[in-house]
């Protein structure tokens, strides 16, 4: 099992760096994972996306489709990439502590 070490904390992750145990997720963990995805600081806009993705996942057990994410957050896709340089699937979902999305986002 690969691990990810950020600022002295170690997490079990899958090969693509997604958090293995969703129960470990909290805002602090999100902040740490954001660093590994090229995000220096989590702003309110980042949280808006992360919380949306996370709530959607908790409700439907799947990551939202990209166009739904854009519609519901009001952010254009370009804006999402500005916030999460590795994109909604690899970036936003990872920071939100979701398991690896299977081709939706």
């Amino acid at each position, binding site marked *: 099992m690969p691990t990810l070490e950020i600022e002295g904390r170690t997490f079990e992750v899958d090969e*693509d760096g997604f958090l293995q145990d969703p129960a470990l997720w909290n805002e602090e963990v999100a902040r740490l994972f954001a660093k590994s995805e090229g995000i220096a600081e989590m702003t309110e806009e980042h949280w808006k996306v992360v919380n949306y993705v996370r709530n959607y996942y908790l409700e439907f057990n799947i990551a939202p489709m990209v166009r739904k994410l854009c519609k519901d957050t009001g952010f254009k896709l370009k804006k999402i990439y500005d916030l999460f*340089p*590795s994109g909604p699937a690899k970036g936003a979902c990872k920071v939100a502590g979701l398991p*690896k999305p299977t081709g939706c986002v």
Partner: protein
Amino acid sequence: MGKHKTPMLDELEKGPWPSFVSDIKQQAEKGKQALKDAPDDLLGVMELSYKDKVTHWKHGGIVGVFGYGGGVIGRYCDQPEKFPGVAHFHTMRVNQPASKFYSTKFLRDLCNLWERYGSGLTNMHGSTGDIIFLGTTTDNLERVFYDMTHELNQDLGGSGSNLRTPSCCVGLARCEWACYDTEEACHELTMEYQDELHRPAFPYKFKFKFDGCPNGCVAAIARADMSVIGTWKDDIRIDQAAVKAYVGGEIKPNGGAHAGKDWGKFDIVEEVVRLCPTGCMSWDGSTLKINNRECTRCMHCLNVMPRALRPGTETGASILFGAKAPILEGAQLSTLTIPFIRMEPPFEELKELVNKVWDWWMEEGKNRERLGELIQRESFQKFLEIMELSPDPRMVSEPRSNPYIFWKEEEVEGGWTRDIKDFRAKHQR
């Protein structure tokens, strides 16, 4: 002798044909690649898959480079201890140049780049058309991307639910049949839709392909969600003197492609006139006639006698939508939607069509539903409504036997409420 014993793969080296197994062994021996053991371990894991009759690649991973959501396909081996060289074996898709024109220097540079950061193994080309770099690790992705974009001025292609790398036939660059500049169109649309190409937001993949004529060298009609196929409006140009030269045997049919075997004397009636699918040609022994109104631009006669017959001069393209490989439904060819449009830069008319189609498909398409399947689900009629087009006999293959265009209530006099008894009194069944 490689690192692993591969008796089954070795069978694939026998015979007079080129062999990918030999190619991989060659790379292993050359040994200049950054992932030293990758070629050897690739052979090893493949041999094991042949033995176990099951793949040893895990289901795709999510890796990528910053700023892009596509272009890299994550691949991991499920036997990483046995085959460490391919534990990570990600694929990168590189946008091929229009019509795949390369200088040898550029090819060398590409290969050197890939030896510097990957397995050195490439696939020229993937079925969408991209140059495929086979096998590297997550750590190396950004490095390849940086050098490729900065030193070689080359971009990644598409993967996942986005616009896939557009591709075009050789077109005007070398082909006399090209009815528009396929390279220009391919390049222009690639540049216009960079966001859609690199940032997946579609229900599923979407492909553009540009064929310069109905010969279809990039198989647009079979493989593209939007197929752009060159055609002409006016008459086939006939050089009667050259026709006679074919008949007399001075010019070889099919550009001499049938050399090497004696097929007998060229017979224009048997080999051209009677093979015309619409029966619109005639030959009276001295003049070839074509009833151009009936010609479906199948290209047969032009292919046989290229020096005598040429496409007309009023050229453009037909636009078809909805081809796809079998997924949920069977394979499907695209359906003629726009019989003719002019193809001149900056291709505004074409872009308008694309935008209309995407707006609809992104709104209505289910996850993993190709455009062709959405058209099937919602009906071609609905599609025409979205495209703001009227049905046209040219959209169906046999207008009187498969007219899948239905009337709507408001288009029928009296709507659905007419008195059937009254009607039958006047019109018997």
